[in-house]
């Protein structure tokens, strides 16, 4: 374990933070497939919450439900409630665009737009109506610094984002997400397409970001969850088997299945 793990211990005490997300009996179906079953989870502010579990257990589905991106699949139907800052977000009257402005998302494969680095960052602010060149310039610098990629790209802001390496692209995507100053950042296996060095940088970044943001991160890499998260939820077949402090989950899980899964991978 790296020194970062120790950092984590420093933060994991803060469990009595405010709750940002709260799900009650959340169920989700893709057509007939029951992908999420009675999920009850509270997610806390300015913590890193990791979601782990085997492939197909519903991790991606769950975090995509938190910003209602899952609705892009037309066959999706849900029941139960999710409250975000005490507002029920699954209501059809709730504007998804508002929600997604406050909840950023980083995807598994880095997905910058085929535009310049500058345009990638300003995309969000612009669609939300910010036009002033000065303000945009400032946002660009701040976001890129926030994602600790500023020094690498500051001289090539007008170049196409596809010229960056995979790890840089992913940090650019994080910066893009920071540009609209969300409260929560969802990350779906943000490092699984990256090499170990880039992965490390992102992990460090996540540690940094949680000072300002609440972060929910899906990962299939158990060590990663252990290294960077405060809480961990273990999903299996669409259910939450166990949800607790990361320490607890990895040292004294209360459910056999959790133990099996974790040890099976650590082997």
């Amino acid at each position, binding site marked *: 374990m790296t020194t970062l793990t120790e950092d984590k211990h420093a933060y994991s005490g803060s469990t009595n933070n405010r709750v940002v997300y709260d799900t009650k009996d959340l169920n989700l179906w893709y057509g007939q497939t029951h992908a999420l079953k009675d999920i009850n989870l509270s997610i806390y502010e300015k913590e890193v919450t990791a979601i782990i579990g085997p492939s197909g257990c519903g991790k991606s589905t769950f975090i995509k439900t938190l*910003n209602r*991106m899952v609705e*892009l699949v*037309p066959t999706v139907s849900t029941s139960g409630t999710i409250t975000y800052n005490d507002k029920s977000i699954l209501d059809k009257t709730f504007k998804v*665009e*508002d*929600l*997604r*402005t*406050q909840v*950023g*998302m980083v*995807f598994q*494969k880095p*997905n*910058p*737009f*085929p*535009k310049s680095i500058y345009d990638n960052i300003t*995309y*969000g602010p612009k*669609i*939300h109506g910010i036009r002033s060149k000065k303000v945009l310039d400032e946002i660009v610098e701040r976001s890129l610094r926030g994602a600790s990629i500023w020094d690498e790209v500051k001289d090539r802001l007008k170049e196409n984002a*596809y010229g960056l390496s995979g790890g840089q692209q992913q940090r650019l*995507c994080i910066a*893009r*997400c920071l540009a*609209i100053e969300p409260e929560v950042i969802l990350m779906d296996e943000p490092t699984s397409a990256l090499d170990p060095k880039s992965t490390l940088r992102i992990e460090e970044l996540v540690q940094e970001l949680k000072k300002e943001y609440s972060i929910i991160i899906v990962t299939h890499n158990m060590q990663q969850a252990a290294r960077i998260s405060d809480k961990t939820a273990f999903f299996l077949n669409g259910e939450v088997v166990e949800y607790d402090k990361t320490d607890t989950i990895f040292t004294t899980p209360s459910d056999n299945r959790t133990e099996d899964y974790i040890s099976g991978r650590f082997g």
Partner: protein
Amino acid sequence: MKYVDQTLVHKRMNSRVLKNNILKQVFLIATLFGLAVLAILIFRVVTQGIAWIDWNFLTGKLSTFPEKAGIMGAILGTSYLMLIVIPVTLIIGVGTAIYMELYAKKGKLQSFIATNISNLAGVPSIVYGLLGLTIFVRVMDFGNVVLAGGLTLSLLVLPIVIVAAQEAIRAVPGHLSEASYGMGATKWQTVKKIILPAALPGIITGAILAVSRAIGETAPLTVLGIPAFLLPFPEGIFDTFTALPMQIYYWTLDASLVDEYAYLAAATIIVLLVLLFILNAIAVIIRNKFQQRY
């Protein structure tokens, strides 16, 4: 007991392999046949027409005297037609494609429109001519002007643009629009700022192919009643006009009046083919140059 006699098989093998090798050559020849015809066609046209192409021919007015005749009027007519075809097909074609790919719910209406588009693609161009004659020339009373011709050709090539745009939109990876939605962008913002720009090279390629089809179309124009002899250059979309393929058609027909008209037709064909070649080259360049790596 053995049914398959290996020695017999071995004996017959020579002739089977020979047959394969011979037919391979036959197939190659068949493939080259089409190309040979193409070569002859181009050779014929060029040898007949190239001597007639000069500055006056390209920029001059039509004339009954072969050595004075120019095709600027037809070039302008064709250009004006395209001035209508390009925006009309792009707006309708891309709009339809966006609707079909991004807005329409999978269902009866969507598959009805899809079937309809694929059937339209198979309707003979002469029938579009009659449609144009009835609707644009007569009912809307535009007369046999550029506007009527352009709209007729637009409808004719519309399926090509729609299909090309649909394919281009489908090729835009979903993770790009997801990223946009993830930032709180609305659907239209995502379409306008992410999907369309990414699909643009494909759309433009399709539009160019559609335009090159429209440029060569003759049959619908013959139905619209394009004047056989017209000197003044068209100056707008409400003017009567002639177009390159119509000029070829009339000169071919009138070769019995004046032998040299056949050469003028050939020369005009060269101009038309060069134009098409340039357009297609541009399409290829766009396709290769702007192909995105996602």
